[in-house]
């Protein structure tokens, strides 16, 4: 048994991954896109081969280093160039406009109305209240963002004077 070696390798893997993530910037694997997520899984999976000494520390470091470096470079390129960004992250999908699902756009992403209904419910929009929705987008992270029709918005603080006048205060 070489328990102390496993302990050393675990600590080594921890430090290497921590250093890589700190060096590459917090948004590199945490932008919330599907690819970031899978990449984080891959980096995690690469540790176990090191722990059981199936690969050397050098190969582990090269492997996770190159993956992180590639992702950092691609993220940086996406920051400079809109085209690269579209290529790697995709574009937001306008799924609902003025209460109506946009069938062609949804089909392109293989999302049906049930999925749209679910995403809206998760944003607090009931199935019978779609007409409140001016626009619903599925963002590149896969999460929905909802903008309501002007009349369905919550009044904002800037409108408080109008409201006070209205009620005579």
């Amino acid at each position, binding site marked *: 048994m070489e328990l102390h070696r496993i302990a050393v390798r675990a600590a080594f893997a921890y430090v290497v991954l921590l250093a890589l993530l700190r060096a590459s910037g917090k948004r590199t694997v945490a932008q919330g896109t*599907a*690819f970031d*997520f*899978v*990449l984080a*899984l*891959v980096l*995690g*999976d*690469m540790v176990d*081969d090191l722990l059981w000494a*199936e*690969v050397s520390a*050098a*190969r582990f470091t*090269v*492997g996770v280093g*190159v*993956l992180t470096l*590639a992702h950092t470079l691609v993220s940086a390129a996406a920051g400079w160039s809109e085209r690269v960004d579209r*290529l*790697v992250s*995709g574009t937001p999908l306008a799924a609902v406009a*003025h*209460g*109506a699902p946009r069938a062609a756009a949804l089909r*392109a*992403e*293989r*999302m*049906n*109305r*049930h999925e*749209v*209904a*679910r995403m*809206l*419910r*998760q944003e*607090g929009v*009931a*199935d*019978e*209240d*779609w*007409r*409140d929705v001016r626009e619903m987008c*599925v963002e*590149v992270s*896969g999460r929905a963002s909802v903008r309501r029709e*002007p*009349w*369905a*918005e*919550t*009044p904002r603080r800037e*409108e408080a004077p*109008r*409201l006070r006048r*209205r009620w005579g205060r």
Partner: protein
Amino acid sequence: MDPHELVMTALRAVGVYVLMLAVIRALGKRTVGNFTAFDLLVALMLGEVVDEIVYGDVGMAQGVVAIAVIAAAQYSNSWLSYWDHGMDRVLEGKPTAIVRDGALQTDGLRQERMNPKDALAELRLQGVEDLGEVRLAQVEVDGQVSVIRQDWASPVQKADVFDEAARERDRARAGGAQGTAPAGA
């Protein structure tokens, strides 16, 4: 510490990076880890395959085949779910109501193996203070809980307080037949 092997590891890592990027972009928004509980599992599967490729435990060709088949299965699955012929109910499940009109639904909770404490915790996370505020809370197919509030517990809308906004709302409601989810959604 064979330098040739280190270079090969680096090259394989680059190759795998490009391959994963292509696969995930090809799968689109309805992709791994974003929609249902099973999507999460697919992401884990892909991740497990990939690290073996980087280390050269499996050849590039073998890895590509495995990833391509998993991706193709996931892609077909998404089309089957899209064609609304009941397959989405089989492949993805359907939402389970856990609260209706302020009352916990025991059968729904049992079906999701949640106890009332779990349900209340989920509702608190969504800002619900009292069960009475909830018209309908469901466990959705991605495992998240959605909460629809009673009318009286919903945030006020401009149409409720401004006359011109109310007129706009009435015009919008009179205007189109749209505005409701399809039956059974």
